[in-house]
């Protein structure tokens, strides 16, 4: 099945979709959602404008497809690091998040896209507003569960409520990402996040 499929029209279509998504990463990251045009994206992907519309009729869909591609990648990595269950194994969950962060640094284009979009998406009319509201809520939840589990084991140095620490962790990461946009060699995202987490959960450093 897989071999036959990979030569059929579906595979060709999948390859084009992939090329389009890669073109979008650069276009949206460089000019923002509103600045990017479908014509420019088609050109970057090396396909015709009508060809692009055939695969993605609306710019909104393109953006959501790229963002979902990125979260699926992160979810798979977290899974393979054994970090999907913050309640059962909070230390592995936090280490998994650090692995995701280290992996993000290897795809600066995607990371830039995420930073630019999360800033733009603060506006309620932005097509990625719901996506980011939902994503940040889930991330807060993830860190809250991990910190709660650590507190129950007496492995949380801070007496602050886990939910508050989760908000802080996410704020720190998000704000450092903005700083990274300005100074890509000088800002060590994973290093700073790791130092902060090891500070609230010393067992993480062991």
């Amino acid at each position, binding site marked *: 099945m897989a071999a036959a499929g990979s030569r059929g029209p579906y595979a060709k279509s999948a390859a084009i979709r992939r090329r389009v998504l890669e073109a979008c990463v650069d276009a949206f990251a*460089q000019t*923002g*959602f*509103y*600045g990017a045009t479908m014509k420019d994206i088609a050109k970057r992907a090396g396909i015709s404008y009508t060809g692009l519309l055939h695969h993605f009729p609306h710019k909104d869909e393109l953006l959501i497809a790229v963002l979902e591609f990125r979260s699926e990648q992160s979810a798979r990595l977290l899974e393979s690091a054994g970090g999907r269950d913050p309640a059962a194994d909070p230390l592995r969950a936090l280490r998994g998040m650090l692995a995701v962060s280290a992996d993000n640094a290897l795809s600066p284009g995607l990371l830039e896209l995420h*930073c*630019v979009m*999360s*800033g*733009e*998406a*603060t*506006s309620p009319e932005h097509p990625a*507003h719901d996506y*980011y*509201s939902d994503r*940040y*809520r889930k991330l*807060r939840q993830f860190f809250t569960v991990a910190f709660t589990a650590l507190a129950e084991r007496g492995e949380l140095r*801070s007496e*602050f409520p886990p939910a*508050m*620490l989760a*908000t*802080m962790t*996410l*704020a*720190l*990461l*998000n*704000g*450092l990402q*903005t*700083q990274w*946009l*300005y100074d890509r060699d000088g*800002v060590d995202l994973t290093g*700073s996040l790791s130092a*902060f987490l090891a*500070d*609230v959960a010393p067992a993480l450093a062991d």
Partner: protein
Amino acid sequence: MASPGARGPYAKSAARRAEILRAARESFAERGYARSSVRDIADRAGITHAGLLHHFAGKDELLLAVLQQRDAEEAERSQVEVPDPAGDPGSVTTFLGTLLCEHQQAPELMRLWAELAVASSRPEHPAHAHFVDRYERARSWMAEHFRSLAASGDVREDVDVDAAAALLVAVLDGLQTQWLLDSRVDIVAALSQFLDLLQPPAEKRV
């Protein structure tokens, strides 16, 4: 001198410029910078498109003028309200908390800054130099604050003041992004607890 000038053509032109800037500010705040247009700004100011271009070359120049105006307003305010970073630590915490509360009163402006802060990281963006300078000043103000805390033993010994300043700037940025995406997040409490995290353990405090 002042009195004849105030009635001459110069005064009329200055009033027109001020009206255009007010309209630009409103348009940027309401629609975001990327989605605003010179045409919309001209409409809001009640002049023609060509009339606006007589005063400002385009959207980039309008943005810079709006940012300069805001800087001037802040500089005026700061003489009375911004505490000495090397002064009483409590007043710095209170000041930053008040700042966040004030920003919460004007979410559309907060959104505009969130959009501009990331978009301006590109060197070709009209506000790039402005934001580079702004971040630099914020970091050095906060570093001065932490240096003064370190001198009086009011910050943990293992805290690097420059790194802490960058983290505080990041937390302030990131908290506002989270709040814009979900207004239930208590960002003022999270900020104050972040600052508490940097304090020396209770038993070591004098």
